[in-house]
């Protein structure tokens, strides 16, 4: 199941109640080519709205917020060497982190793909 937030993040929700999270192509395009991604520590517990990741382009450093509550269970270490994968493949190789959902029902409040697409058109 694919979900989106108003802060231009996507979540791919898996059947084991974990979710992979990244930023959308729209957001990546607005930021410009990324030069650094500051990833969270594995095991960190986050609340919806917490600053979890910082993505940096030449222009600026921008926060990525936790879209739901949970525990960080994986981060995309490849981004340390190739932060611009977020630009070239934002929804595949450019994922940011994986979270174990602590309140899976929060996902229901997020946008589906159609609603998000309409938002950024």
């Amino acid at each position, binding site marked *: 199941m694919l979900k989106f937030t108003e802060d231009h993040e996507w979540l791919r929700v898996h059947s084991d109640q974990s979710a992979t999270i990244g930023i959308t192509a729209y957001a990546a395009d607005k930021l*410009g*080519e990324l*030069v*650094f991604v*500051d990833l969270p520590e594995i095991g960190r517990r986050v609340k919806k709205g917490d600053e979890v990741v*910082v993505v*940096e*382009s*030449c*222009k600026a*450093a921008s926060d990525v917020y936790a879209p739901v509550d949970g525990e960080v269970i994986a981060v995309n270490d490849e981004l*340390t060497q190739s*932060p611009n994968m977020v630009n070239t493949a934002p929804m595949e190789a450019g994922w940011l982190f994986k979270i174990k959902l602590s309140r899976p029902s929060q996902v229901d409040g997020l946008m589906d793909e159609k609603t998000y697409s309409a938002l950024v058109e």
Partner: protein
Amino acid sequence: MAHQSGMENDLRKTSLFAIHQRLGASFVPFAGYEMPVQFPNGIMHEHKHTRTSAGLFDVSHMGQIIVRPKSGAVQDAATALEALVPMDILDLPAGRQRYALLTNQDGGILDDCMVANLGDALMIVVNAACKQTDFQYLHTHLSPSCHLEMLEDHALIALQGPKAEKVLAALAPKVVEMRFMDVRAVSLLGVQCHVSRSGYTGEDGYEISIPVQHVEAIVEALLDHSEVAAIGLGARDSLRLEAGLCLYGSDMDTNTTPVEAALEWSIQKCRRTGGSRAGGFPGADVILKQLDNGAAKRRVGLRPETRMPVRGGSLYADESSTVQIGTVTSGGFGPSVDWPVAMGYLPIDLTAPKTLVFAEVRGKRVPVRVEPLQFYLPTYKR
């Protein structure tokens, strides 16, 4: 602090606004102007394009001030200006320009600028954010002997990069003969312009002052060359940062002296202790003493040890100390260096190359090493 209205329609537009818009620029408010920060290719691409080909910058927001001596003798304008700057202006030959600093009574820097000798007048190009106060200040001190005029009817563009010479020479072959910091009256498409071989990117190139009614035609003619791309303020900042060039208001201001800012090279011998026209500028007692004995703090290049950009903030001696020892005054990612670069101030005993200090970024201590200011070596045609 400058008054900020936040009202979009209070912002001025340069005469190239329509071209920026057509090229898809994103705009930001800067020093009261609506200026392009980047074009669709993005800052990284624009930066590299300038280093490898030719970048075209709109710097019309900067102040262009003509100082015309009432006597008709340009030496009289030079003598008057020497009372305000620690530079040798009298010996600046016609057709040459030089970097200069307006200093205050404490030895602090009011602004940095370029001073050109046009033969019958001086032309001073100052920072956009300072131009009204600079003009008032210059007018107060120079008007007894000079007429001053802010060139509101002239745009200013910069063409920078290794292909700049070839491109501009297609419109005016004689610009090839100019050396770094030469200034010439040059006809471009039949329009009389002032061209200097200079810029603020670390690249060879030109700055061109053009009557506003003709600037669009000349810019279109330059953009017609496949080597030329329009570049925004974002890449202008990363280019000057890599080249170790100061941004006024960030890397120097009234609280820093030319010696602290590592700009001694801009103060010629004749204005220093023992020189033929030693002193005689605001803050001379402080600045001359520092030239002889050094200053307590100094601007240095700072290279983060990791890929995390350090854009500003406090510096510490180690990972836990709560005592601030210095400040990062500007920083970011250097696309040509392919690594973050920064500059800032440290106590003089910590300014040796390779000295390790710590910056604080988002609450974390990040190791940074002192380096020479020029992360990218300029390619000026001297």
